[in-house]
């Protein structure tokens, strides 16, 4: 059959199904707003009471004064529910601290490895005497350290911390989680060592040798068990959207990793298709859902207003689950893989606009008229920045998947810039914000030097912007030269050099921000700065 007829038929069937889904959702009352579900993150009477543990006492009062709106009650939140929350926080404190500590270590290490790799691209004769220093290994060490070391550890910390909070019960099975965390980090450390020594599976994003990968998968299973057990023994009636994203993300990454790492199964171009299915899904089904789930919790929690539309957030979840899982094939546009696979992935990449808009509209409406609150709360600033970068990088990604754009952008630094916008501008900034929120609760201690949080924010955000803008422009020029058959290939190298240098400048700022952040973390872990009496209770901070 003709492909045109097939696609028309497909569109027809899809719209019929869409119609039925619409009718079904009307009947189920899903289009009616559900403010109770959206308020599940608050105790009774908590709405209107801002919550930013990263602020000192004076800062909290300023923030509260700015955030108070007409109609807010002066009552304190329900004390019993707050006590439950404190118990939940206490139950998870130790494993969460462990994950954050590992994450900080890998962030520092991975960032420095990344900066080294970046410098090597314009100083090619720098650090070449030993095999482990060469660009191909240094860059892979960077990737493994930041993707598996930093983002994965930090996201596990957020999941483990939010699960008991949202389920309103103490965490079950801490020892299993700690063991899982130890296994995961042993795998990451061994994987990085192996890559440095030249032992790698050779697939992008899946370099860690599969023998070491077994430890990673086993660690994830050890973590999933207690999380699921806590989930089924929950004390809340309905699950908040964050729990949806986090539980699904945890299951997805584990299965992804197992499917991707299966030794001896994948071959030839099928392996390439699998490789990019995995590569994109690490971002799409692990980094993104956990970070989006974190924004869905922290952003409304900080400003003390429920998200505007709970149903929109659920729509975002299911469309993300369906569309994002299939977008990986667009990495092989123009390559020797079946054409239908690439077309499917391009279509699903465009469909990703739906969950991204669902998220952005929801956050936009929640924040409407409250954007200025970002001036009072550094944690909120990280969340807002991350949320906005999610919109930007996802929209960019959707259009980047189109053949006409890929023709220029594929195989160039443009793609690298895009990957960093997603993994750093969006995910990492959200993780920073979440850690600033969580740590005072975990340690019962204030951040010793609050000004450093602002330094961190500005260094990191200016760094990633320089990185992204410079490399995007340079990558596009590179792609145009490569497509121009009258120009020699070496022109496409020469044209990128100034932009590669700008990338190193941006990268250096980012590494500087990590130094500030990790120093601050260590200072807090060693209990520098002012003491905070008792559990960090926001209720005692009321004016």
């Amino acid at each position, binding site marked *: 059959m003709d492909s045109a007829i097939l696609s028309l038929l497909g569109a027809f069937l899809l719209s019929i199904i869409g119609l039925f889904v619409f009718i079904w959702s009307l009947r189920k009352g899903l289009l009616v707003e559900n403010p109770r579900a959206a308020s599940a993150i608050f105790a009774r009477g908590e709405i209107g009471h801002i919550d930013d543990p990263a602020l000192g006492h004076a800062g909290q009062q300023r923030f509260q004064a700015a955030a108070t709106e007409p109609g807010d009650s002066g009552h304190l939140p329900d004390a019993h529910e707050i006590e439950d929350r404190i118990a939940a926080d206490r139950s998870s404190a130790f494993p969460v601290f462990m994950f954050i500590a590992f994450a900080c270590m890998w962030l520092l290490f991975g960032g420095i490895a990344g900066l080294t790799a970046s410098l090597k691209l314009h100083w090619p004769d720098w650090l070449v005497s030993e095999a482990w220093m060469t*660009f191909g290994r240094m860059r*892979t060490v960077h990737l493994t350290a930041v993707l598996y070391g930093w983002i994965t550890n930090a996201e596990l910390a957020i999941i483990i911390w939010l699960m008991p909070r949202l389920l309103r019960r103490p965490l079950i099975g801490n020892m299993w989680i700690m063991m899982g965390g130890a296994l995961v980090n042993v795998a990451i450390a061994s994987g990085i060592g192996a890559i440095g020594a030249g032992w790698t599976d050779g697939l992008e994003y899946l370099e860690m040798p599969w023998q070491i990968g077994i430890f990673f998968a086993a660690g994830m299973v050890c973590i999933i068990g207690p999380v699921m057990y806590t989930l089924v023994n929950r004390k809340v009636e309905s699950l908040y959207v964050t729990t949806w994203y986090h539980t699904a993300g945890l299951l997805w990454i584990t299965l992804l990793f197992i499917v991707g790492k299966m030794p001896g199964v994948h071959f030839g*171009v*099928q392996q390439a298709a699998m490789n990019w299915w995995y590569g994109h899904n690490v971002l799409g089904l692990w980094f993104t859902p956990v970070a989006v789930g974190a924004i869905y919790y922290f952003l409304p929690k900080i400003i003390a207003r429920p998200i505007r539309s709970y149903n929109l957030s659920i729509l975002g979840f299911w469309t993300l689950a369906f569309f994002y899982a299939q977008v990986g094939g667009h990495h092989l546009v*123009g390559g*020797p893989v079946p054409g239908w696979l690439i077309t499917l992935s391009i279509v699903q990449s465009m469909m990703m606009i739906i969950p991204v808009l669902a998220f952005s509209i929801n956050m936009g409406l929640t924040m409407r008229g409250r954007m200025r609150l970002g001036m009072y709360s550094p944690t909120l600033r990280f969340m807002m920045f991350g949320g906005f970068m999610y919109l930007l990088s996802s929209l960019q990604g959707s259009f980047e998947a189109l053949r006409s754009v890929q023709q220029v952008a594929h195989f160039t630094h443009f793609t690298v810039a895009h990957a960093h916008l997603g993994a750093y501008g969006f995910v990492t900034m959200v993780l920073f914000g979440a850690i600033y929120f969580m740590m005072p609760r975990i340690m019962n201690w204030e951040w010793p030097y609050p000004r450093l949080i602002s330094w961190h924010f500005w260094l990191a955000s200016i760094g990633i912007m320089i990185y992204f803008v410079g490399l995007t422009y340079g990558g596009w020029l590179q792609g145009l030269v490569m497509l121009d058959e009258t120009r020699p290939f070496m022109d496409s190298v020469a044209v990128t*050099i100034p932009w*590669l240098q700008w990338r190193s400048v941006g990268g250096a700022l980012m590494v500087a921000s990590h130094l500030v952040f990790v120093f601050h973390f260590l200072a807090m872990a060693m209990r520098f700065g002012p003491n905070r009496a008792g559990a960090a209770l926001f209720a005692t901070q009321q004016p």
Partner: protein
Amino acid sequence: MENEAKLTAGAMVTFAIAVSALVILPYVQVRDVKAPEGLKPYTSAELRGRASYIANGCVYCHSQQPRSESFAPDAKRGWGRASVPGDYYYDKPHLLGSMRTGPDLMNIGVRQPSKDWHLGHLYQPRAYVPGSIMPPYPYLFDIKDKAEPGEEAIKLPPGYTPPGKVVVPTPEALDLVRYLQALKRDYPILPPEPQEATGAKTSSVAPAPRPTPAS
């Protein structure tokens, strides 16, 4: 729809759909691909070289997938005809790559068959290609006073050999060059189905003398 069974089941269903579409279906579709007649299996030395190519991360800057002429002027750059699944029959793991910081290497053995060039270029790329940003690989070479019997010093352009010394490739460097020289997909391939061969026509520069499929 607020319970964990639906959450887990739903997440698994969407995941299963994606696995079927992007992993299992391609597996079924290319499972029966045969090696083209002109493609030779790698020798053990070439496989050692390939392992070295992987260990040193060459794939992060060099793709191995020339695209069709309708898409990019790869053939005109001498990178070869658009590749087909059969070309990768002996490739475990695949090395298609995702960056072209350096040129595509699918047919580097056709374009640059010289062993001396490759060895010297690995030792110091800028001795051969001014403006190159490829790292040199001095750890694949030994610098000695003179070559031992059975060893052969590489011939570098003037000014690149350390004074009074010779540069001798390690066995790893020799294997790597053997692998690079073996990267030749200049044999003809028949289009899998005649009606699919509409996209690209082979140019005079491309090594393959026959029309190739577009995808």
